[in-house]
């Protein structure tokens, strides 16, 4: 002991604020690269909440969920950036609003 422990509330508050930043970015930006960045921020903020809760009770489960979130983020970014390449090739722009019509 001897050290002051960090209150769980404050870590969860940090996580919530990061999530709100990511959500606002997701809704406001129309550039697809910024949308992917916002998704990364949101996944990362949920990982903060998991790790904080795991550390609060001294259990490793939080960090295991963090590793699963890492796998999800890696797969999502790989597919998302493939879509960015396709969008750039077809529409010559990275704006999501250029791609909101389906063919049909």
């Amino acid at each position, binding site marked *: *002991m001897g*050290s*002051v*422990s*960090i209150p769980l509330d*404050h*870590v969860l508050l*940090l996580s919530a*604020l*990061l999530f709100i*930043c*990511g959500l*606002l*970015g997701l809704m406001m930006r129309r*550039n697809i*690269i*910024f949308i*992917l*960045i*916002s998704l*990364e*921020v949101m996944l*990362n903020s949920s*990982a*903060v909440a998991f*790790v*904080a809760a*795991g*550390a*609060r*009770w*001294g*259990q*490793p*489960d*939080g*960090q*295991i969920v*963090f*590793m*699963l979130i*890492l*796998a*999800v*983020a*890696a*797969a*999502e*970014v*790989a*597919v998302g*950036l*493939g*879509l*960015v*390449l*396709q969008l*750039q*090739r077809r529409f010559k722009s*990275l704006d999501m609003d250029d791609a909101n019509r389906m063919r049909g």
Partner: protein
Amino acid sequence: MLELVLFYTASTIALVATILALTRANATHALIYLILSLLAVAVVFYVIGAPFAAALEVVIYAGAIMVLFIFVIMMLNLGDKGDRREKQLLKPQVWIVPVIFTLVLLVELVLVLSQSTPAEIQGLVTPKQVGLTLFGPYVLAVEIASMLLLAGLVGSFHLGRRYLDEGRENSSRGRS
């Protein structure tokens, strides 16, 4: 007491860097701030007693995933406009803020490392515990994650291959 100072500094840096990242006009600048935010979150992980998660955050998130982003921005080949942005990157007002924040994180790192005893953190979870639990009760989750990564690999290969093939077709058509 030191932990509290480290935590509040790192979380402030993480929040400010995230807000700056999402309000940039230039994707490369946004990525610099995003990497800074991820490094600050890694410090938060270390301070709350998850050193393994902190290492993974730096190696995989700030390393591998951000490199993917930078590769794709390079592949998009923004041309002349890209060259002008590249020159802008050398101006001080672009990199001075990230450098200051990173220096603050470096000072935190030196503070942690200069303590004679390892930081006494409540609820410290060692990498050994994480590994034992991961390949014990959670081994099914590892399998699911591997299948997810395989699906991501196949999907990105499919999308990227079509991009490369048709790009080659267009360039050969242009030459003939």
